[in-house]
């Protein structure tokens, strides 16, 4: 196989110079990283991949007890377990995309210091890995929705479920976009790592995960809905459970923010990747 394509490495930096063709050439690597991580996550565990389901189940159970039973927060008439589970799995998909991509440079410094491949391969494989986990959880959620529905509970999936792939993509890209920015800044300032770990938890409470937007006082509801994750969670819940707030306006704003964050994230990431190895 002869390959005579000429590559030029120059000291000049170009803004937003993504070589999609090159990333496509490395698609096998993306999948191998996903496979490696899946295999590695549940190696030497007793329950193995069952953890993917146990994890959101336990969290949802705790949410149900604390926010539903003890704090008695209204769920707009939706069965509490389904309500909390819907918010919880979508949020954890978003936050794990963010967490994973935010450590791209630091946790792969050794590898990046020895061999070249398009660095965006790492966050992309992270998205796929998280998407697989999410889809498994979503499958279980879907089964529960059907069970509740046919048991006569107040659950009404509607046509908006067609938006599901778009919502999923948006959540992952938004999380990854933020993650790329953070990972670029942490090559120099490690303290951002600390901020991320508790910042994400705080962020969850600013998102309608454990409460419906309808319970938020009118005065700050707009503020909550301007949080780009909020419309995604609300739309998702409205589509599958049939109650909650759904407004195109806020969803479009969120979409716009996602695009902006992602593009900015990639620009910063591409800028830093060229010689972060000298500073890390």
């Amino acid at each position, binding site marked *: *196989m*002869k*390959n*005579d*394509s*000429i*590559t*030029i*490495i*120059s*000291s000049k930096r170009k803004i937003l110079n993504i070589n999609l063709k090159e990333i496509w*050439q*490395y698609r*096998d*690597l993306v999948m*191998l*990283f996903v*496979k*490696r991580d899946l*295999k*590695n996550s549940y*190696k030497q565990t007793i329950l193995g991949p069952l953890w993917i389901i146990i994890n959101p189940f336990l969290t949802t159970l705790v949410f149900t007890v604390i926010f539903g039973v003890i704090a008695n927060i209204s769920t707009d008439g939706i069965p509490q377990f389904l309500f909390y589970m819907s918010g919880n799995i979508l949020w954890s998909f978003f936050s794990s995309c963010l967490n994973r991509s935010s450590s791209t440079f630091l946790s792969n410094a050794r*590898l*990046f*210091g*020895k*061999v*070249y*491949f398009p660095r965006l391969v790492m966050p992309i494989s992270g998205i796929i890995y998280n998407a697989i986990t999410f889809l498994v959880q979503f499958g279980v959620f879907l089964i529960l929705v059907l069970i509740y529905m046919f048991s006569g509970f107040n659950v009404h999936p509607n046509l908006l479920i067609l938006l599901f792939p778009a919502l999923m993509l948006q959540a992952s890209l938004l999380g990854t976009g933020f993650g790329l920015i953070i990972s670029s800044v942490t090559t*120099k*300032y*490690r*303290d*951002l790592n600390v901020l991320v770990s508790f910042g994400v938890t705080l962020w969850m409470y600013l998102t309608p995960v454990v409460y419906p937007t309808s319970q938020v006082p009118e005065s700050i509801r707009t503020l909550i809905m301007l949080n780009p994750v909020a419309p995604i969670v609300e739309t998702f819940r409205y589509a599958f459970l049939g109650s909650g707030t759904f407004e195109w306006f806020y969803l479009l704003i969120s979409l716009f923010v996602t695009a902006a964050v992602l593009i900015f994230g990639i620009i910063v990431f591409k800028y830093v990747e*060229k*010689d972060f*190895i*000298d*500073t890390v």
Partner: protein
Amino acid sequence: MNMNDNCVIKTENLTKEYRLGAIGTGTLRHDLQSWYAKKRGKQDPNVRIGAKTYEKGDRFLALDGLSIEINRGERVGIIGANGAGKSTFLKLLSRITSPTDGNIMFKGRIASMLEVGTGFHGELTGRENIYLNGAILGMSKTEVASKIDKIIEFSECEKFIDTPVKRYSSGMFVKLAFSVAAHLDAEIMIMDEVLAVGDMQFQKKCIKKMRDLALNDNRTVLYVSHNMNTIRELCSRCIVLQHGKMIYDGDVDEAIKVYLGGEQGDFLSHDYSDSKHKEPSERNEINLKSVKYYGKTDNIFNDNEKIPLELTWQNKEDIKNLCLRVEVSDYRRFPVTAFVIENFYSGKKGEEHTQRFNIDISRIARGGYYTRYVFYNRKSEVLPFETLEAAAGLRFRKRMTDKNENRWQKSWGSVIMDEIELAE
């Protein structure tokens, strides 16, 4: 920037600059603090008192305007002292980091082995790691699949190929890793001393493989090493770097001479007209003027060849019963042994004398060595020895011809001892 047909790598004025000193303080708070203090004209609260601070102008050029052209099928060795810029050059070529100035152009794919086993994952089996490592190095799944049998065979790890690599010995690990890299379909192969690991036999096999790739498939090989033997065996052309600049480009043996000659540029003789290579001594009564290996054209000695040493000195005082010690240390400057001659000379003040010696280094194992000359004597039988002059000496290389090469491994030590006798 143009490349002619045969050229596969071309660099123009390639420069890499590193800032000296710490880059920032590592936390945002401290950086802001320092910046604010500086702005108000106050002292930086994050600098240790008395610490040397680096100003903006303090920079270090790891590579200083390097322009090289490498043609298809060449096996190029890159040598130079630590910090000469070898690894920086390879890092730039492999796109690990980017140049500060200048350009690199290359044709085809580059497979870089700056470290063996990059991206190997302990939990995965040997076979899975071949796929992963191959993909990291730029191969597609189908490419690896078509070569996996050859890779496994070359690695000599058939038996353990479905075992997680965390259970491998370090040798097996290296063998497997090298095998993957050696079977890449890249037009350009870059290696940074990866052959330094693994046993002798495997090293030989690897070098042969790299040679074959270059000779038969017209691949281009770039190889960095401190091991001159492997450079000699593998390379057809050699580049010597010093302080980020190219000081020699061409014939391999000539390049090695240039490199071993070091900073003074001499390896056959030295003139001690400045006292740079001398050490202070207790009684400064001898002035060593020059040294040379007489009747030699290089500083390489084979098997039983003796070192023909010629020293010239001047007596600063009347000298009686002069003694000389030639100390030998290895490339890490670790003392190996010393050669001694006692009471070989007496002379009057002001006299200049040239003396030839033959030093039998047949017991010294192969490799490069440093020497040091120490003149000493004692004023009377009851007094201790005192140093009259001490100076850094010429380096030499010991080489074994094929017959003797495997009799003594370098790792056993630097002095070859006699066989063990059987006792009753």
